[in-house]
């Protein structure tokens, strides 16, 4: 009812959601990157571990990276047990996040359907669905008729006929900006300094230990520093003398003009190569692949735009008369196995949380939670052990794409 009271008072009583802090000369922990992962890490450091002398340094405005431009899909139906355990932890945190932060993140668990277009794909889909079930995460196979009931505008008999699919009912979308703001607000309330327009330009490293960071707003001392800068991870890691197995690419998304509700679930097709959902404002939110080459442009190209729209129309021919309203892209940090890179680095006190690529929005709560644990204890959280940097040296990839044919 606070809302009603404020409305009557012309909303004059609302306070800043978070403090715009001036950077101090030193912190216990410096978090680089004011995206979802960075802010959530700061929040959980303060909340779960009592570490409140924390700064989040953001080169632009918080949420201006991928966290504020993604297609909001949250799911935990991953093939590998390591992944589905991690992402399900995340989804469970999401399920209570609105209440915890007292900020409506508009989580809408409307369900996600993954389509299969051939018998072979159906087999792989079943293997995948069963893998999720074996890990005690919800997932069920669907017949074409069930799919049609759940997503009326879908065309079952197109060039790529729909022969079945699976659904995770707990999957859904939530409001990306709200997640960022909600964490920022809660972290700020616990004492975390959120510093915008503060770019990290170098590290102070001595004897293999991190001592602090250099920024566009001066040097800041800290014995523990975590990088959660998504597409800029290679760039930043290079400043610390590290080479990461990451490629930065422009992942695209686009929206149509808003229309009345027509699609109540999220639909993904790997072989047609598109996914779509409808936002609460009514736009059809469409996503697909990344432009094929390294890019920091944060701007999408034309071929991918056309390919995505052709693909969406293959799935939903009746969307043909809708109009594209906006097309954009984010700088995504892709690893060779499309799984994240989390945990320790060869430099003591320097942690990484990156490699989220095309799918790290859904991971924000768990990413923050497990990184906070790792930073506070110095030991990788068990859920992220499989995602350590040294897995490549061992050949121990966690490759969803290779195993299930679909990454993301």
């Amino acid at each position, binding site marked *: 009812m606070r809302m009603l009271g404020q409305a009557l008072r012309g909303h004059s009583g609302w306070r800043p959601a978070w403090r715009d802090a001036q950077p101090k000369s030193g912190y216990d922990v410096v978090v680089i990157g004011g995206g979802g992962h960075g802010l959530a890490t700061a929040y959980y450091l303060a909340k779960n571990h009592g570490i409140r002398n924390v700064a989040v340094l953001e080169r632009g*405005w918080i949420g201006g990276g991928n966290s504020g431009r993604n297609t909001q899909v949250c799911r935990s139906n991953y093939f590998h047990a390591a992944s589905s355990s991690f992402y399900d932890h995340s989804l469970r945190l999401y399920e209570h996040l609105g209440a915890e932060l007292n900020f409506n993140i508009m989580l809408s668990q409307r369900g996600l359907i993954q389509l299969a277009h051939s018998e072979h794909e159906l087999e792989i889909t079943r293997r995948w669905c069963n893998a999720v079930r074996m890990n005690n995460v919800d997932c069920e196979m669907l017949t074409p008729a069930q799919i049609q009931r759940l997503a009326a505008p879908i065309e079952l008999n197109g060039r790529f006929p729909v022969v079945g699919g699976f659904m995770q009912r707990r999957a859904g979308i939530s409001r990306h900006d709200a997640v960022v703001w909600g964490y920022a607000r809660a972290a700020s309330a616990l004492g975390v300094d959120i510093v915008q327009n503060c770019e990290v330009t170098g590290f102070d490293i001595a004897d293999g230990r991190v001592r602090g960071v250099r920024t566009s707003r001066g040097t800041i001392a800290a014995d523990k520093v975590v990088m959660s800068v998504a597409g800029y991870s290679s760039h930043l890691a290079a400043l610390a003398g590290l080479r990461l197995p990451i490629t930065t690419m422009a992942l695209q998304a686009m929206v149509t003009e808003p229309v009345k509700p027509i699609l109540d679930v999220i639909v993904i097709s790997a072989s047609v190569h598109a996914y779509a959902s409808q936002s*609460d404002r009514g736009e059809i939110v469409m996503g697909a692949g990344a432009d094929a080459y390294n890019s920091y442009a944060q701007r999408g190209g034309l071929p991918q735009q056309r390919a995505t729209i052709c693909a969406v129309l293959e799935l939903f021919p009746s969307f043909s008369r809708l109009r594209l309203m906006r097309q954009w892209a984010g700088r995504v940090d892709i690893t060779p196995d499309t799984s994240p890179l989390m945990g320790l680095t060869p430099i003591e006190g320097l942690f990484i949380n990156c490699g989220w690529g095309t799918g790290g929005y859904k991971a924000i709560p768990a990413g923050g939670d497990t990184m906070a644990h790792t930073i506070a204890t110095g030991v990788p959280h068990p859920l992220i052990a499989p995602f350590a940097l040294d897995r490549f040296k061992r050949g121990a990839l966690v490759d969803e794409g290779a195993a299930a044919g679909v990454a993301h």
Partner: protein
Amino acid sequence: MSRSGAGAYRLPKGGTVDRDAPISFELNGKRYRGYAGDTLASALLANGVRTIGRSFKFHRPRGVFACGVEETGALVQLHDGARGIPTARAPLVELTEGLRARSQAGWPSVNFDLGRVLDLFSPLWAAGFYNKTFIWPSWHTYEPVIRRLAGLGRVPPERDPDRYETGNLHCDVLIVGGGRAGLEAALEAGRAGARVVLVEQHHELGGEALWAQQAPEGMPLHESSASTASRLRTRLTAEGAAPQEWPASAASRLDAGRTAEVIPAQAWLARTMAQLRALPDVRILTRTTATGCYDHNVITLLERSPPSGSAGASARERYWIVRARRVVLATGAIEQPLIFANNDRPGIMLAGAARQYLRRYAVAFGSRPLIATNNDSAYLLAKDLREAGVRVLGIADTRREISDEVRALVRALSIELFTGCIPIDTRGPGSVRRVWLGELSQDASGITRKHAVDCDSLAVSGGFAPALQLYAQAGGKLIYDGTSGALIPATPGASSPAARRSAIDIVGMAASRVPIGPRISPVGKSSRKWVDFLHDVTVADIELALRENYTSVEHVKRYTTLGMAADQGKTSAAASLEIIARLRGVRAAELGHTTMRPPFVPVTLGAIAGRDVGERFAPQRLLPIHDWHVANGAVMHDFGEWRRPVVYLRPGETREQGMIREATAVRNAAGLFDGSPLGKIEVHGPDARDFLDRFYINDLSTLQPLRARYGLMLRESGAIFDDGTVVMLDANRFLVTTTSGNASRVAQWLEEWRQCEWPNLRVAIVPVTEQWATVSLAGPRARDILAKLESDIDLSGSAFPHLSMREGTLLGTPARIYRVSFTGELTYEINVPAKRAQTLWDALLAAGTPLGLQPLGLDALLLMRLEKGFLHVGTDTDGTTVPNDVGWGKVAASKRRDYIGKRSLRLPENLRADRLQLVGLTAEQGTSFVVGSHLRTADSTEVTDGWITSAGTSVASRAPIALAMLRAGRERIGSEVDLYDAGVLQGRARVVQPPFFDPTGARMNA
């Protein structure tokens, strides 16, 4: 004013509408009349229709506000049924006979809008409202209700009956905008011999010149940037875009035109068009909007076909992709509103729009209009209204300093002028009935006096924002300019990075700055001052955002949704920057601006896809004898791009029955399988053996002529990539086969290594998959059948053993015959030139049918290979499988020389004993193995221990059989595992060593 004909607000004369061609149309079921040449907006205005739509959030009544793409009020659903178009902008809809439109967002009707109650509660619906509410118990409880209120138009339920196209264009110069600046630039470039494409989004050329006529002499409307013509010329020549010399006289024409002769616009336009038409390489596209500016000067256009009504038009819309060496933006400017309380009422319109309706369509936007402006342009409206006999109640100008010319004009028109005045509020109900004007204090921060004017319409002009969206898309930086209150290029001209990279020039109105006075009323409820009309964002929303620390323009945008509606902030971006800057106490130029992205106007998805929909969404490949298969009962399925027979059904048969019949025929007699997609690659050259040996885990150094070796190819990561055979024809010639799905991938893979890694090896790679049809004749009678065909090849088992290959002639054509087997039966895999496939197929069937030969589909083939336990790459393996997982570990490890992927096999993970390994499964009769089921061993601590990759019922034994990837599977042979499907224990299976049939291989070696 005429009270007859097409509408009460239609003037008796003037305009370019065709009064001899009346048109009737409908809005919300009510009939109206307009004229040919009208738009839906002009015709509705002529009929005095004020409320046309409802706003997005508060469902406020809205009417025509603009006369172009920036329209925010008159949005309608057009047509019915499958041809429905959501959210059409009425000013862009050319009127046609019988046109039907419906208001949008009204729920349940525009005039009684239930959603309107939302407006009463609008203080509640402030920005960020959702984030603060609806948290308990969960958002999902409230969502359906909220969603129903959202959205504007409706998606037609059926498939789109219209046709769309995409096309490609190349030119030296692309000129965007067919106004005066654009046409003159086209003339310049065309005369210089350049290939020119000029696009204009409206159906007529001329832009403002078409209707604005000339400004009264001596009245400088726009402060134009320097010599655009000479800049353009220099650039074109320097970059070779203009192959010929520029005529010396052309040098100054564009600039000179500004002060030179004054001729009526129509005459000027006709003359210019004639000159343009005379040029050979100038292409002009009307109804065509440049929508996106992408890397390397690639621009997209959306062309709309004229609304002919005749079904003859080949496409409703066309999406063009233009590769231009230079781009000239002659896009003009978009008029901006004034910000005051209740500035969103129907009857309030941009002054330039009001003038266009008047001059082009002979429609008065009101009968007792008031004008409010902060710049000189709106005076022309006053003049035109007076000339048309409409009484103007007054002009409020927010400026105090007004030029003598303007004052003289106002005096001549005898219209009352309120200097230093701004509208501060309006009253309805609904459409505007009264406007309060406030006299601004010296610093415009308050008002000193106010008075009311009762009027029926209000024209506003808050300045002009150059239409530079495309420039910004190309990476051009824009900066807020205080003089004109708009975004202009930060580094004008050729020095800007975008201009350099994308070779963009900006000319005409798009390059000019119109000085303005104040545009924001300092008084009145900020929650009633609309900034973004389409998304219902008010000054109060911005205030709230800033108060809550959403201070960056990007945060303001996302918190309030300002600029995120379908117009993408065309009339709100500039004012919002001024508002934010004022509230924050900073200079607007420091704020930056939100990113402008494609498209410039919303683009129909169908147009973007063009013809790449339906069957043309992805190409399809047909087998050489596709028609025969279809004619003979084949059930065709897609395998990648190929259409292939899975079974040949006989009347009354199920697919399963057909499969069993075919497999039985093969085991007892013979089957004929079309395997033409099988990958075939010739590798020639002195280094061919050495080259190929670098790709396979198998040692090719010992391969003998005319012998075939089965081999596995790896990715550098060690994962299995493909399998197939390598045959040595002679020392310089090798034949490689690949799986059907990987045929071109393998060829490309070989080429990549040849070109990039080993360019000195003397090899040539020739993919010949399509050259040769592949027909497999399999079964105990295969030899007998093949022997009936005329050939020079000795088929006896001793002369032509398993895993060998022969070249010769068959039925008089060249043939390559392999003895390899996927069914476990004696098999001749016969390759003949593809155009001979039908002859061969017919001959084999004729020879074999009496012996029991039947065509064989993929279902039965794969079942028989399962019985044999042969590996099917991509089915039994995935992107993580290494050779040892499928029993090829020893071979891979024992090869001495390096090959692709070899080193990776020694990475620790690939050496683990508990990896998944390929095994066979059997179970009691009645169990049905399901591919994709998971396995769990008795002692397991893992989530899963593997899964079934292939399954079926043995034709030979009728027992359920399967292949599976099982954790440490080879150690578990003889043990039992549990099967899980859909989370439920389904039964148990015994782990066995494949094959399930003919373990000695006697049949295929026969």
